[in-house]
């Protein structure tokens, strides 16, 4: 395994783009959290606050026809892959105009039109799916690649082993991205894991692994660029381990009392947005420009929320749509 070394050649314009995506994700998550408190967004909602750098740095190196699979914590991946905040927010509000017509909600957010093949309510379940997507793309003669996002918790599930082994055995064009946020639901992952760690597990399955500071968006961007070039070039699967931290609870219902507040406080000092912002200032980008960008993204999300709230609810009859072609709607009882 290699630790990613960043040579800091990223120019300010590139970092501004990355920062814009991270600000959009953060604003989306905060709006979602607020809407949940007001009862406008319901169900299980898993926020990615603190983890914005990994989806941003990886997806900024993908083409529209590349495909990704995400997790229950999937808003960031979806936005970073290019989905519209408006249809995503409408989905969270359960409206007919949502990207899944109100059938999915937060845990099943997806936008196939931008190659985002779905969040998933089952930990690790996206791994075999994305491996198969890569196999299907290869069968079709496409040079698109597949990227599977998952968390540290997934590395204790069987599909992780089966999926990595499979990708290595078939030499498939897959980039595995593990966001190690330290917590598997409400349990510290290291307390439930044997062996020397996630990177060693991936390497043992034959997938070359790179470890990166997952809160440094430039480092993620740089590592992803190089790994994606290798994958697209036919080099077989690669594994990117992003070390990050979940700044909020497992779900919006979880105040995370099982964590030492000092640990969380210390982690906020490594907030990926704050770090990128400081770096932009250090690169000579003016505060006014940064603030303008932030205001634009916050306005975009505010507009998405307002539009979602005004959008129509789905008709009850739509509950019978898209079950299956054979034996679906006819069996409404």
């Amino acid at each position: 395994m290699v630790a990613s070394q960043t040579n800091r050649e990223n120019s300010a314009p590139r970092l501004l783009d990355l920062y814009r995506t991270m600000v959009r994700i953060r604003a989306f998550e905060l709006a979602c959290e607020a809407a949940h408190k007001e009862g406008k967004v319901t169900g299980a909602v898993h926020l990615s606050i603190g983890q914005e750098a990994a989806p941003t740095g990886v997806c900024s190196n993908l083409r529209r026809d590349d495909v990704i699979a995400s997790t229950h914590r999937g808003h960031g991946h979806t936005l970073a892959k290019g989905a519209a905040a408006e249809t995503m927010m409408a989905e969270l509000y359960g409206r007919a105009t949502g990207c899944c017509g109100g059938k999915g909600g937060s845990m099943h957010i997806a936008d196939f039109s931008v190659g985002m093949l779905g969040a998933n309510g089952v930990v690790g379940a996206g791994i075999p799916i994305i491996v198969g997507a890569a196999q299907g793309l290869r069968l079709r003669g496409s040079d698109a690649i597949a990227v599977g996002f998952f968390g540290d918790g997934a590395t204790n599930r069987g599909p992780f082993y089966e999926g990595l082994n499979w990708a290595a055995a078939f030499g498939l064009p897959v980039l595995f991205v593990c966001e190690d946020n330290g917590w598997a639901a409400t349990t510290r992952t290291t307390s439930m894991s044997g062996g020397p760690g996630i990177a060693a597990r991936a390497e043992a399955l034959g997938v070359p692994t790179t470890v990166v500071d997952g809160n440094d968006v430039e480092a993620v961007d740089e590592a992803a660029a190089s790994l994606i070039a290798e994958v697209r070039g036919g080099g077989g699967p690669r594994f990117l381990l992003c070390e990050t931290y979940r700044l909020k609870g497992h779900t919006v219902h979880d105040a995370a009392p099982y964590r030492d507040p000092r640990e969380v406080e210390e982690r906020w000092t490594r907030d990926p947005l704050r770090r990128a912002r400081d770096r932009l200032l250090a690169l000579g980008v003016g505060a006014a420009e940064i603030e303008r960008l932030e205001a634009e993204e916050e306005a975009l999300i505010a507009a998405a929320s307002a539009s979602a709230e005004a959008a129509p609810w789905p008709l009850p009859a739509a509950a019978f749509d898209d079950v299956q072609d054979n034996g679906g709607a006819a069996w409404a009882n």
Partner: protein
Amino acid sequence: MGELSYLEAAIRALRDEMRRDPLVWAVGEDIGRGGVFGQYRGLQEEFGPERIVDTPISEACIMGAAVGAALVGTRPVVEMRFSDFALCAIDELVNQAAKNRYMFGGQGRVPLVVREPIGLWRSSAAQHSQSLEAWYAHIPGLVVTAPATPADNLGLLTAAIRCDDPVVHMENKNLWGLRGAVPDGDHVVPLGVASVIRPGRDVTLVTWSATVHDSLVAAEEVARQGVEVEVIDLRTIWPWDRGRVLDSVARTGRLLVVHEAVKAAGFGGEIAATVAEELHGRLRAPVRRLGGPRIPVAYSKPLEDVYRIEPARIAQACFELARAAAA
């Protein structure tokens, strides 16, 4: 009209579909060598290892990968070797394949076929003998097929591959060698359509898979004593041909469902309940079900036979139904 075995019919279905559509491919353990029963024999020679794909023993990944490959536009045929092993891939089938289209609001389709060999076969014991079709019928999103004849294996497997829904295609291990007439040319058996394989006026007998043949033996037996049984091979378990079954029971007033699967919570319960709901006033006898006892399948012959439904028991049930009606 030629003659093929049930196994040869399946090879022909897959070969014809792979020739017709370059995006059809198969994936599973040992299929390059022909598969555990020989049901893929000769296919890797024709289509190569990229389309007849041998895999590690990783059922979850076989099924999950097929879901992903289906989402990007290919049509995978998944081999599970024994239906019992599909239980290692149940999240991938039930939570992923079956629900993908629905939970993402119709953005994707999962046109995969899962081949799951079922049934009692050569003392295979508890983990290689099950018939779990009722589980899958319970899952919105899935189609479930269970052919009893070579022609229906050809026609239903072809329909399953062409269908955009995920299909669980349950072939019966005890029928691989069964020979029968098979139509030449393109042969598609529509999903959801049962087949009346023996007309009769006294009792409607609904069955599928291997017990179709035991039921026919029983029907001939009772016919010699004046009881005419209408045998309906359901062929597709979901969606089941409710119309054809109700029409028949409306005429006979008597229903017997026979399946190899455990009777308790078996799919026969759904059929019996539907008939009771729809035709209560026209029934001339209480509905009857025959299915396996609620025990795992044992290895030793006398113990395995406890699970087996012999034609004599089916005949007995037919007589009892006919007598109840006369009373």
